[in-house]
């Protein structure tokens, strides 16, 4: 099972900044190992963040996003104490959902 995400969400003024670190190998599928064999692709394809059930960001990635991905974005309309939920799904169908309380 995938390791948990590190999510931070901080409200400043009327804007909430969300910063997410995800534990993932992000293998492109075009690299070769020492013996010359292709290393199979294994990377996060879709990420969605929601606040009170409403989508606040969707992003689709290729394997070019770095290992242990970082994502940062900002949205309006949240209050301190609200929850932000982040979910990722990778190309093998594995997924992980974590949430954080806005500080």
């Amino acid at each position, binding site marked *: 099972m995938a*390791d*948990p995400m*590190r999510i931070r969400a901080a409200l400043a003024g009327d804007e909430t900044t969300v*910063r997410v*670190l995800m534990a993932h190998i992000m293998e492109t599928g075009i690299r070769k190992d020492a013996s010359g064999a292709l290393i199979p692709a294994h990377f996060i394809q879709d990420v969605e963040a929601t606040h009170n059930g409403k989508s606040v960001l969707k992003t689709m990635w290729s394997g070019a996003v*770095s*290992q*242990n991905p*970082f994502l*940062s974005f900002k949205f309006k309309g949240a209050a301190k104490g609200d929850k932000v939920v982040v979910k990722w799904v990778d190309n093998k169908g594995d997924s992980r959902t974590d949430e954080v309380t806005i500080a």
Partner: protein
Amino acid sequence: MKKSMVQRQVLAAAALLVGMGAALAQDATATGIAQYREMLQDGNPAELFEMKGEKLWTQNRGPKNATLEKCDFGKGPGVLKGAFVELPRYFADTGRVQDLESRLITCMETLQGYKAEDLYKAAANYGKGESANMVAITTYVVTASKGMDFALPQGNEKEKTMYEVGKRLFFARSGPHDFACSTCHGVDGQRIRLQELPNLTKNPGDGVGFAAWPAYRVSNGQLWTMQKRLNDCYRQQRFPEPKFGSDATIALAVYMGVNSKSAESIVPAIKR
């Protein structure tokens, strides 16, 4: 605030660059790299390892199904704050000078019932299996001392001996390239390629050298502890492999740690 300063420096360096020679191109490169490092500070993936370690710390594991919460890193059972910046140190219960990583194995043995030999074997396969857990726990324990200054004890005779042994190992030239640690880390202000080399024979400054590890390596996505750092230094020195937790690695850590007295630990750092 800091970022905008770096950006100003970059602009200034770029302006100077017009029509200038290689030396100034070098300065612009250095400024550019400083800007790059600054941009990576926010969101260090080492936090993922720290989180995992925090969870493992309080989790019942091993044959004794116990947690590590009573582990004594030298400041008393369960005291983590400030422990890392005083390691390696002498432990009376084992009669050894131990670094954080070998001490963790002692705790996993005594508190959780793991076999030390199994853990040393696992540790040699760095970042895989149980080693991944030990790396995460190490990251958690060191982070509790983030921002504190190094102050390794030297009151015990064995601690002094390890310092002297570490010093000798540091300067020991050998192998097909005649390299020693001191070849690259013996004086101020030198570089390998564009990589600045800290002078480890003295305190190289806050968050530099010994005080910059453990660190997340962006080149391979791994969290590198001091044991792994030293292992790879010896690989590049063309030496045979230092065994995990061996006295040579601990002696070198004592030498560098004592030399780094009063340097601020910025763990966990992020490195290229």
